[in-house]
């Protein structure tokens, strides 16, 4: 089997010192293969977001190693880490942080342009990404001309724009209604079927069920809950 897109070994994260010391993550081993969609569930405060941040090179583990696309993040220069964040990893987080002076399409194209992609090509990817989140044709609008849900979808389009190998999502359906939330999960699923990997944090069982593999964080440790590496052959398996 080929190298996993994300590999974590004995990853630990400790906050504070002495009596205030909290072990947020303890000896986490986790692989996410190409094409695999993994969901992490667990209560708030169980370390889910910390784990996601470490996987995406936004936070450093106290112990252990993380490899993205086979490269150890601990051995990489800040410049290389920045490039991984801009190019390889897609982030879908709860906060929007859209730049108000830029249009939706400009916001979405920004990470690609920052990486040196020619503007027309970056805009092409931005249009595709906006289309994917159901905002096709709205690229010229500014954030203040969009509803809260639409702004969140622009942020999702920005997180997923271009060819990315690892998609990280933290409660991506937060402020969205059920149907729109489902379309975002469908999008993550489709991207995985095209070869990307996704790691999603959610406390909703119905969202976790979109993943191939569901794991649970409890007291900073991982429990495997359910693996579905294949789709049931047909409805006949469920129908009786």
């Amino acid at each position, binding site marked *: 089997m080929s190298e996993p897109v994300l590999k974590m070994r004995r990853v630990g994260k400790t906050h504070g010192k002495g009596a205030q010391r909290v072990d947020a993550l303890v000896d986490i081993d986790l692989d996410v293969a190409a094409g695999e969609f993994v969901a992490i569930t667990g209560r708030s405060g169980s370390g889910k977001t910390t784990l996601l941040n470490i996987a995406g090179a936004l936070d450093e583990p106290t112990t252990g190693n993380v490899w993205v696309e086979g490269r150890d993040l601990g051995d990489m220069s800040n410049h290389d880490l920045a490039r991984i964040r801009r190019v390889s990893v897609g982030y879908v987080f709860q906060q929007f942080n859209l730049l108000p002076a830029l249009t939706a399409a400009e916001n979405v194209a920004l990470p690609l342009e920052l990486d040196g992609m020619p503007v027309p090509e970056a805009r092409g990817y931005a249009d595709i990404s906006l289309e994917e989140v159901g905002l096709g044709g709205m690229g010229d609008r500014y954030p203040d001309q969009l509803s809260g849900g639409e702004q969140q979808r622009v942020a999702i389009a920005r997180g997923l724009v271009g060819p990315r190998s690892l998609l990280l999502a933290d409660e991506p359906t937060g402020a969205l209604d059920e149907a729109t939330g489902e379309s975002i999960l469908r999008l993550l699923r489709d991207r995985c079927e095209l070869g990307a990997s996704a790691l999603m944090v959610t406390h909703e069982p119905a969202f976790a069920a979109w993943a191939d593999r*569901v794991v649970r964080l409890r007291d900073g440790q991982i429990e495997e809950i359910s693996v579905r590496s294949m*789709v049931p052959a047909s409805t006949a398996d469920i129908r009786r």
Partner: protein
Amino acid sequence: MGVKEGLLALLSDGPRHGYQLKLDLETATGESISINVGQIYSTLQRLERDGLIEDGGKDSDGRDIYQITPSGRASLAEWALEAVDLAAAGRDEISLKVLIALSTGGLDPRVVIEHQRRFTMGLLQDLTQLRHREVDTDLAWQLHLDRLMYSAEAELKWLDRVEERLETAQIPERVTDVETPVEEGV
């Protein structure tokens, strides 16, 4: 349960013969249930005995045709409008298992929860995949699938809640007498 009312509902749309009723009932329920033809005929006999349906003659192939009576229509209307009482629906096996485990020294409710969660999460994944893939299937099946998915989701949330409550109540973990079965291959 439900077959009787299903037959009455179909017959309220017009007379038909027994085998047709079987096929129509399966279609109407999104093929979520399968009924053997013997059960259809025994139910029809009971309905006829109770005066809810009556002999409607024979079709061109000589098959017995059934038709609904006025009291059959009344019975159908009564059933359709009577709300289903969740609290009176009878035993809930998962709930029972957890409660019994809680009150039994040799069982740890957490172990029961863990096994149930694995199973139901797997089911919910399968159902989600089915719905993702089969967007054009018939409406009856989609509605049934939605119902199963909401039930699975509610169950998973309940299991999480139980676990939280056990923690708050500081119920200590127990060594279970029940041997953990070997995990099935995935």
